[in-house]
């Protein structure tokens, strides 16, 4: 890791005012440390935002919903009674990510903008497209953990566990720069590689995430989250599904099915949602929705197994949501 300056920011204004060439914000530092050790990021200056007062709050308003500070940790989300009762998919996603130690350190803001775990991207010796090269090594082999949707020109899967439920719940992100604030839907925040292969979102160079807002779920909303790893302790998902269903009695009024570990962004399975809306959800319907969800997938040489896996996990998650709670 190269030598760098360290500054402490005590306010958001102070933090964003410093942003520029070679300046990187540090919250939990979990992902950043990995990136710096592999020389994927070589900052001149780190701005520590972890001690900014007030950014680690979980606030709730019956009218406007949940407002999460970017320094809220994954452990906080997992343990928070209101998040757990009203936004169970978010609490479960946070609680199943990484390890207890990492969940205690990792901030929600950092979780959303962490870089992908692709083993080519993470290895300094592979000058891949994402790093300015002209090869996506994953497209040529050893791609068992890579994307089954939108895997050209770059086959990463989005790494954020929190992003999957946030997109499903229709969350918005508040972004702050020296020029002011803007809000953007989480779904629009994440960006496919064909727009810009070097980045995974639309955060501008002088912006930081200052709040994550999740609307009040409509009455009758039920949700579930499933993470399928190769193992349970400390593993990334090979398939991840969130189902948020707005139910009117036994009929599904609205459905939001989002897949993680499937695409370079949290993948909205609209083909599955349309199967569910207006119908009574049962095993057969869930099966049909799951089948539709993966119909347009385009697997690589070694990740075809993910199709069947997603089909199972989508079906199970829909049924879990339907039989479950908010």
């Amino acid at each position, binding site marked *: 890791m190269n030598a760098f300056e360290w500054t402490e920011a005590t306010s958001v204004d102070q933090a964003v005012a410093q942003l520029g060439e070679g300046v990187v914000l540090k919250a939990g530092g979990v992902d950043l440390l990995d990136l710096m050790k592999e020389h994927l990021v070589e900052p001149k200056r780190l701005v520590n935002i972890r001690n900014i007062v007030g950014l680690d709050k979980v606030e709730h308003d019956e009218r406007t919903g949940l407002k999460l500070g970017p320094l809220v940790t994954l452990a906080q989300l997992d343990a928070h009674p209101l998040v757990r009762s009203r936004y169970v998919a978010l609490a479960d996603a946070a609680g199943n990510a990484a390890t207890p130690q990492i969940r205690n350190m990792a901030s929600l803001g950092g979780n959303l903008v962490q870089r992908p*775990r692709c083993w080519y991207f993470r290895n300094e010796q592979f000058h891949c497209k994402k790093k300015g090269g002209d090869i996506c090594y994953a497209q040529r*082999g050893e791609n068992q953990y890579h994307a089954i949707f939108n895997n050209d020109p770059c086959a990463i899967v989005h790494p954020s566990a929190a992003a999957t439920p946030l997109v499903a719940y229709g969350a918005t992100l508040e972004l702050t720069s020296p020029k002011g604030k803007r809000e953007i839907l989480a779904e629009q925040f994440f960006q496919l590689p064909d727009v810009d292969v070097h980045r995974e979102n639309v955060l501008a160079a002088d912006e930081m995430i200052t709040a994550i807002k999740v609307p009040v779920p409509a009455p009758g909303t039920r949700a579930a989250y499933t993470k399928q790893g190769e193992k349970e302790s400390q593993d990334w998902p090979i398939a991840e599904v969130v189902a948020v269903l707005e139910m009117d009695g036994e009929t599904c009024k609205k459905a939001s099915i989002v897949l993680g570990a499937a695409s370079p962004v949290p993948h909205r399975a609209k083909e599955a949602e349309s199967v569910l809306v207006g119908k009574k959800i049962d095993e057969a319907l869930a099966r049909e929705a799951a089948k539709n969800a993966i119909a347009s997938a385009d697997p690589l040489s070694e990740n075809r197994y993910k199709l069947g896996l997603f089909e199972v996990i989508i079906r199970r998650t829909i049924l879990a949501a339907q039989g479950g709670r908010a």
Partner: protein
Amino acid sequence: MPDETTKTAPQQNPKPGPAAAQNGGAQTPRAAQATPPGQGGQGQGPTKSVDMPIGIPGATLHKAARLVGVDEPPVLAPNSELKSIGKRTARVDGKLKVTGAAKYTADINLPGMLFGMMITSPHPSAIIRSIDTSVAEKYPGVKAIHILTKVFGVAQMASEKDDKYPRIRFAGQPIGAIAATSLEGAEEAARLIKIEYDQQPFVTDVEKAMQPGAPVVFEGQAVQAGTAGGGGGPANVKQNGNVRGPSLQGTRVADPAPKDPRATTRSLTTDEINKALKDADVLIESEYRTQVQTHSALETHGVVADFKPDMLTVWASTQGTSSVRDELSAVFEIAKSKVRVITEFMGGGFGAKFGAGNFGVLATYLSKKAQAPVKLMLSRKDEHLSVGNRPNSIQKLRIGAKKDGTLTAIHLVSHGTGGVGTGAGSGGPARGLYKCPNILTEEYDVFTHAGPAASFRAPGHPQGAFGFEQAIDELAEKLGMDPLALREKIDVGLDRSDAHREERKVGAEKIGWANRKPAGSDTGPIKRGIGVAQSIWYRFTSRDSNCEVKIMRDGSVQLMSGVQDIGTGIKTVLAQVVAEELGLKPSDITIRVGDTNFPAGPSSGGSVTTNSITPPAREAAFKAKQELFKEIAQTLGATVDDLTIVDGKVFAKSHPEKAISFRAACGKMQTEEVGARARRRDEYKDAQGKNVPGATGGVQFAQVAVDTETGQVKVERVVAVHDCGRPINPLLLESQINGGVIQGISYALYEDRIINHRTGRMINTNLEQYKIVGSLEVPKIETYLIEEYWGRSSTDAAGIGEPCTVATAAAVANAVYNATGARIREIPMTPARVLAALASTNNVRSARS
């Protein structure tokens, strides 16, 4: 490779009988060469015949004669009659470890110490044209740079072509190292070294490496010696391109016209084994594959080297303090007496930590150049790449049997790659587990441009058992026999048969084998099953095993030996053995080990340590006690022969009422301390001067739950029943068995070195994508120990480190078959592989129906 450890060859020869010829190929054990009755081997002194307990208590226990040194301690009773040995004594250094007070190599900090960083090749095959260190040398804080002229720990050709620098044969190959005043500085400076490479063709895929015309790793015949942990390739086998072999082993038959005039027997020919297989009533023919596994010890390889004009002192994370000393002594041409290697605490080795290694040699050069101590601990990446792995295997197995299950022929052809190393054989289980008149194993090493193999916890056996023990289950199914009943039928008349029989009995009852259902009979997506597999391991002895025991006037007792505690608990075991002999408690004994300044100890590999070091510990304690008695007998008004120590009290057997405390007795010594030193004697012989049998192993049962929709395998329960001669400390043995089972599950389900074959680089060089079992994957593990006495030494104990990891993957695979009806022929059993196996099984079924 300098290696002072003498190892006896596997004691896998069967008991005399018709099958006596089956396990040929093993060299005559050096420690077991015949000596005339009444006389030990060299340096062993005269012997006498004494009766010792032999067999399994509750089953076969009896007495038989052994030739024992006349000055050795008296025969030790079975464990049930002892006070310290056989008891569940907690680790003597447990508190130091859990409080962090224990200092491992990485924790050693010396005044003025520098930090070393490796310089490695990013390319799998290259000739180095030039190395320019001039910019790096000027980086602030840089004190020394050294470039290697020879690479250690890899296969070598007899005539290495002289390039200016060693040829690059794998990505991650050490080139040199740099020392600076901070680790970060060393790392940054290392990036400033300019190396010009002439990249060469490479091959990292084992099957591509076997093709004609594949880029060759070594242009000439190459061989890698084994270490004290085993491994290494057989000498004198053919090499064709990257393929080295076959090494032929198995049944030996008389050879009237040998090619080598010294040989009188030969292995079977292909025609002979084919004929034996053809004559079988039932034939199993299958292929199994295992992956490359890296050792991944939590503490990486590393040293702190302090080169001073009169003494080189090295703190090393090693399984063999003397092996590090000997290599450094040879490389730097310093007398062994001027090299001191210290390993106080050690964070895991699993077979990969013998010798100084490239990093150790480099740290010593850097210390010599900079005239300051240098700490060099490998990064996790270098740990995966350059210091060892378990080779993969591709095993083609054929087993023939009669209708009643009796085996008639076993044929194994195996290929595996140890990268730029050798030792990829996997035939041990096929050769030694069951009685069979015709066995032929043909083992090939395949060179690839990848990091070198090193001995790894039971070299060859977990991979061999994964194939062979599944094939035995396949055979049972084809014969319509229960897998345990078949093993009962074919595990007869061998060294291991008695213990295995007891172990099957205990294990079957504990796992509930009687309730085992037919394969795939559960309904619903989650299916449960149980499976079994067996292991064998050998009884190796290192005669470089010495102990000194001192008794001091304040009543304290100290044992000193160069042997190192690699985390398995030998310190505690030694305290128990000395305490038993001195009539004290283990906590009364101070154990000092892990220092070459102490009497030479064995390297800890091959499950050798307990077997090797406990007899001299007992003998040194026994002799120190005699010295104490000589000092105090007169003062106590007793004769030396009449004195004894029981429960910390010293008294004359004729006057127990005059007992005084051990401490008070020591206070009567005329000198500050007395002591004695003992060395490991040869294994005992029977009254006729013949070798006696004795091997270790076990039987493991696994219960799994398989989600047949997601392909996820969950191991729910493992019952592990093992033996290792006389168990000294059941608590520590259970701890090692737990570790072996956990590592075995990790091997079965998760671990895999993944190389990107287009670039020849490993891509999961971390502990995130190199997946290792975590706390949630650890099943309920129940361990049971069988006591088995052989009468082979004054403690009759053996190690457990290796046999306890051999059977696990096979037991899990057999359980997955029992759960699902799908046989998993390749590990790790990832969801992708399990789903594929289930799909192909279902396809076969639907095609049949």
